[in-house]
C-alpha cells in the first residue's frame, strides 16, 4: 500500500535474507566491509601482519627485489611501502607464461594505534621484507597487584 516494496509478501524478503546469510557463511570476508586501503587478491607484494604485546611484525612477500630500492615509511600508524621490481623479458625466447609481477608497486597498511614510529627495524631474508615496530610501553597490559 505504501510503495511497491512494502506490498511484497514478507516471505520474499525472508528468503533473500536467508540467502544473504548463506552467502556470508560461504564466503566469509567477501561480504563483510573491506578495509579502505585493502587491495584485490594477488596484489604485489602480499602482506601478513603478526603482533605480540610489545611489537608488531609486518611481512612483505617481495621476492627478487633489491631491498635498497624499497621506500618504507611510517606516519603515525600508517605504514607505506613502495618500490619496483623489474623483470626483463628474455630476448630470443618464446614465452608461455608471464604471471610474475613486474613494475612499480605501492602498498599501505594501518597498524595498531600504539606503534612507535621511532622504533622500527627492517630486514630482507629469502624474499621477505620483515619490518618490526615496537609498541609504546603504556599500551601494554600491566598486571595489577592487589595489596
Amino acid at each position, binding site marked *: 500500500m505504501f510503495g511497491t516494496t512494502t506490498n511484497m509478501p514478507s516471505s520474499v524478503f525472508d528468503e533473500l535474507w536467508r540467502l544473504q546469510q548463506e552467502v556470508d557463511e560461504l564466503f566469509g570476508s567477501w561480504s563483510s566491509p573491506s578495509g579502505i586501503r585493502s587491495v584485490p*587478491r594477488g596484489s604485489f*607484494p*602480499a*602482506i*601478513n*601482519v*603478526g*603482533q*605480540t*604485546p610489545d*611489537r*608488531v*611484525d609486518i*611481512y612483505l*612477500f*617481495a*621476492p*627478487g*627485489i633489491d631491498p635498497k630500492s624499497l621506500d618504507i615509511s611510517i606516519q603515525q600508524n600508517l605504514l607505506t611501502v613502495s618500490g619496483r621490481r623489474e*623483470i626483463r*623479458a*628474455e630476448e*630470443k*625466447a*618464446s*614465452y*608461455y*607464461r*608471464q*604471471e*610474475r*609481477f613486474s613494475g612499480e608497486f605501492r602498498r599501505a*597498511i594501518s597498524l*595498531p594505534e600504539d606503534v612507535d614510529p621511532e622504533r622500527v627495524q627492517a630486514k*630482507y*631474508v*629469502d*624474499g*621477505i621484507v*620483515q619490518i618490526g615496530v615496537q609498541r609504546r610501553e603504556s599500551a601494554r597490559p600491566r598486571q595489577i597487584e592487589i595489596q
Partner: protein
Amino acid sequence: MTTNSEVTRRGSATAAGQSGSAEQRPQSGEPVRPPVDIWEDKDGITLCADMPGVSKDRLELRVDGNNLIIEGQVQLELSGKAEALYAEVRSSLYRRTFSLSGELETGKIEASLRDGVLTVRIPKRAELRPRKIEVRAA
C-alpha cells in the same frame, strides 16, 4: 625470537608461536600456487617461480614420472607469542606441478634459488634440438 610459520596458518587468529612448530608442517589450507614465468629457447625451457620465504633447505623439486613438482615451505621469523593480525598469505606451503614432454632431458634439470625466486632450467635432449634445414638450390 623463534622461527616458525604460524602467521601463515589458516585461521590462526588465536593460537600461535608454540616452540618447535618450525619443524612440523602446519595444518594449513590449500597450498599457494606460486606465480611463474616460463619461456623456451632453442636449448631448453626455463621456469621462474616466486616463492618468498622459502630457504634452500625447505625447497623440494622432483620429477615424478612425467611431472615436475615444485614444493616449498615458508618460514617466517616470529616473536615468541605472536598472533596473526592480518594475513593475505594463508598457507605456508607452495606447490605447483607441470607436466613435461619427451624431448626434455629431466636428468639434467638445474635449479637455483635466490631471494625467494626459484629458477629451473630444463634442457632439451641434444639430438632433439631444432636443426635448421638448409634448402639447397637444385
